[in-house]
């Protein structure tokens, strides 16, 4: 039974090899994952530690926000009183016409635009175009400020209409608690993001990253900002549209 000749030593690899460096272990697919995780030291190869840590922070934040949204789901499914119709609660009268959810829609577009400018800022940062990077980051922060401003407007409007964490005139009492908790925590993230982006933008302008030539910090700040946008996608779907 010599149908299977022994493979010569060293050429046994059935795994895909790393095209950049064939002598390196494979990076693709499950064999790559197994090798990365079983190497007794850094599992996240070629990923700067700052970026890996930001991702792990964002993972923990995902759990926090999902717990809030799950709590909201629980109260919404179990209240005996009717849930307020968000389409009407968040309607705005513009030029004598009542438009449902319009402010929330504008806030969504503002936040998506801020993500777009942030993505481009990361790009210019790696090209070491400091001025464009800083301008785009400050534009992102300005969009963030606009978002928080509109949120403040929305909060004061609802508070004026009598919405409180313990009750409201429109229906189920838990509406206010869910609303203030979820949008408040998200707004806090946006506000902190505005500060964070402004600080990194100023550091870029000042040339702090020029000596090392490493603009990773811009991408890491970008990760945080995109996450804030990501959370809003879920809040928009589940809290406002559902």
């Amino acid at each position: 039974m010599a149908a299977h000749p022994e493979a010569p030593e060293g050429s046994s690899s059935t795994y895909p090899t790393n095209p950049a460096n064939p002598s390196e272990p494979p990076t693709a697919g499950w064999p790559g994952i197994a090798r990365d995780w079983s190497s007794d030291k850094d599992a996240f190869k070629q990923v700067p530690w700052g970026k890996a840590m930001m991702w792990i922070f964002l993972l923990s934040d995902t759990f926090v926000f999902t717990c809030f949204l799950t709590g909201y789901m629980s109260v919404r499914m179990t209240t005996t009183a009717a849930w307020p119709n968000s389409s009407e609660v968040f309607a705005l009268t513009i030029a004598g016409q009542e438009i449902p959810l319009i402010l929330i829609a504008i806030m969504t577009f503002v936040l998506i635009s801020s993500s777009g400018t942030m993505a481009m800022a990361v790009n210019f940062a790696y090209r070491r175009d400091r001025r464009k990077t800083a301008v785009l980051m400050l534009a992102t922060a300005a969009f963030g400020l606009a978002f928080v401003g509109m949120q403040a407007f929305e909060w004061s409007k609802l508070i004026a209409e009598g919405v409180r964490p313990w009750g409201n005139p429109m229906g189920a009492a838990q509406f206010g608690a869910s609303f203030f908790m979820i949008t408040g925590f998200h707004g806090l993230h946006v506000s902190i993001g505005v500060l964070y982006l402004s600080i990194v933008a100023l550091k870029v302008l000042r040339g702090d990253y020029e000596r090392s030539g490493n603009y990773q910090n811009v991408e890491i700040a970008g990760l945080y900002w995109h996450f804030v946008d990501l959370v809003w996608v879920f809040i928009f779907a589940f809290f406002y549209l559902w």
Partner: protein
Amino acid sequence: MEHAQGQQHPISLYLKIWGLLFVLSTLSYLVDYFHFVGYLRWSLILLFMILKAGLIVAIFMHMAWERLAMVYAILVPPLCLLVLIGLMAAEADYIFLSRLVFFGQG
């Protein structure tokens, strides 16, 4: 285009994704505007939400180009949350009925 320097992708890609996110947001807003109800509404909302979230994570956050070891380390743990959501949804009936009994409504 050196690899150590980090993610480098054409600006036009970001602009396209930006446009796509605008379109998807408009569509999900229109779901509310045209008063779709029931399963049609919920499935459309979920569809647009997942597409938007996927685009943001994959392109804007560069997950599509990260090493798989990290992609799975970040994206698999949130699946636990589906268990939590499932449990809470399964309990909802029981809590709802208890509330009906205690508050004497219905």
